[in-house]
C-alpha cells in the first residue's frame, strides 16, 4: 500500500487539507473524505458528467482526476455556488425552467453551465448543447436544461429573465 498523500486545496473558497490514498479520485475525496456529496458518481468513467467540478476554473470530471492532483489547486463544487443571499443564478434558472427531475445529473449540469457561462456569456442553443454533450440526463430530454442555461445567461448578463 502506497503512502497517503497530503493535499492542500482551496475548496469552495476555503483552504482545506486532507490525506488520501494516491489512487483515490478527487470525486472519492470530495464525497468520502470531505463529506461533499453534491458531485455524483454516475459512471466513474468520464462519460456522464455527474461528477463535474471546476479545477482551477476549468471544467473537469472529478472521477478522472486524482485527489493528489488537486494539491495547490482551486476546486469549486456545486456546494460552492449558493451563498447567504440565496441560490446562484444558474441554480435559480434550473428551478424556474424545470431543468431537473430526479436531480442526479443536476449538480454536474450546473457546474458545466457555469464553466461555459464564465467564458462565453452569450452562447447559442447549439453551443450550449455542444458544450453540455458530456453531461447526460436520463429524465428531462435536455430541452428544459438548455432553456435553463439560456435563462441563466440572461440573468447573469443583467437582462430581466424573459417568459
Amino acid at each position, binding site marked *: *500500500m*502506497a*503512502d497517503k*498523500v497530503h493535499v492542500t486545496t482551496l475548496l469552495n473558497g476555503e483552504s482545506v487539507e486532507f490525506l488520501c*490514498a*494516491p*489512487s483515490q*479520485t478527487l470525486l472519492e475525496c470530495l464525497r468520502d473524505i470531505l463529506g461533499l456529496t453534491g458531485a455524483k458518481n454516475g459512471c*466513474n*468513467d*468520464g*462519460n456522464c*458528467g455527474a461528477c*463535474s467540478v471546476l*479545477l482551477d476554473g*476549468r*471544467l*473537469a*470530471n472529478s472521477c*478522472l*482526476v*486524482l485527489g*493528489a*492532483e488537486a*494539491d495547490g489547486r482551486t476546486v469549486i463544487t456545486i456546494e460552492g455556488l449558493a451563498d447567504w443571499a440565496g441560490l446562484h443564478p444558474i441554480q435559480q434558472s434550473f428551478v424556474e425552467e424545470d431543468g431537473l427531475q430526479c436531480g442526479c445529473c443536476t449538480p454536474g449540469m450546473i457546474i*458545466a453551465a457555469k*464553466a*461555459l457561462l464564465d467564458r462565453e456569456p452569450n452562447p447559442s442553443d447549439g453551443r450550449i448543447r*455542444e*458544450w*453540455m*454533450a*458530456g*453531461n447526460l440526463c436520463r429524465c428531462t430530454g435536455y430541452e428544459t436544461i438548455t432553456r435553463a442555461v439560456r435563462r441563466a445567461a440572461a440573468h447573469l448578463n443583467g437582462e430581466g429573465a424573459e417568459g
Partner: protein
Amino acid sequence: MNFSYGYRAPDTIAEAVRLLQEGGSGARPLAGGTDLLVQLRHGIRQADLLVDLKRIPELSAVRYDPADGLTLGAAVPCADVADHPDIRAHYPALVDGAGIIGGSAIRQRATVGGNLCNASPSGDAIPPLIVLGAEAEIAGPNGSCRVPVSSFCVGPGLHLLDQGEMLVALHLPIPSPRSGSCYLRFTPRGEMDIAVVGAAAWLQLDESLSYIEDARIALSAVAPVPLVAETAATWLIGRPADSESFAQAGRLAQETARPIGDVRGTLPQRLHLVGVMTRRALQGALRRAKGETIDG
C-alpha cells in the same frame, strides 16, 4: 485486483525520467489521465507508480515561431490546443482532431501527447499530427531524440518508447505556402463518440492553385496503428486539385486500409467510409489551402 499505486509530480524532465527509470515497468507517465485512469480502474493496464507530468513547465508550454514552427508540450490539454490562435491559423487539422476528443470536460484534461502515447488506432489527434509532419521529442536516460510521429505507434496501445523514456513535446514544421489540412471522422453520435473511421489530409497547391504539389493522408481506426496512406498521397502529386482526383485517392486509400469489423462498424462499412472520409478530408484541405474557412 490491486488498484493502488503511488503518485509523484516532479517539476523537471530529469526528475521525471529518473522516477520512470527507477520505477521500472510499473511506473507510468500520467498526463490528463482520461485514458490511463480508466484503464487502471478496469485492469486493462497495471501500474504501481504514476508520474504526473503536468507540473513540468516545458510540457505545458505552447510556442509558435514563424521561423521554426510549433513546439507543443506533451501535457497541453486538447482544449488549449483547439483554442490557440497560432494553431488555429496554421495547423487546422490538429484543431479538428484535438477539438473533437471527448466532450468539453474531457478536452480540458485530455492531452494531444496522451492521445499519441495511448497509441489507439482511433486516436483522433494522431492522423493530424502525421499529415502535418510532426516529430515527437523524446527524453530518456540516454538524452533526447526526435522521431517522426508516423513511426511512433507500433501496435494497438503500443509505442516505441523504452523504459524510462517519455514524450516531451511535438514539433510541427512551419506550414508551407498554399497548403491546407483537415481531419474528419465518422461517428454515429455527433459528440462523445469514438471514430468508426477518421481521415486526415494535407495538401500543398501550385501557384495557380489548381494542381497538387504535395500531399499527405493518414487514417484512423482502419489498421492496428494510425495508417499513412502513402500510395494515395503520392498518386495525387502533380494531379489537378479536383473531385475526380480526390475520388481516385479515396479508392487508393481503400486499398491501403486494413480494417476489422467490430462493435463500431462492419468491415465493408469501414472500407466504404475510408473512401468517403478521405475524399472529404481532401476537399477540406483544398479549401483551406485556398484560404477559405470551412468550420461552422
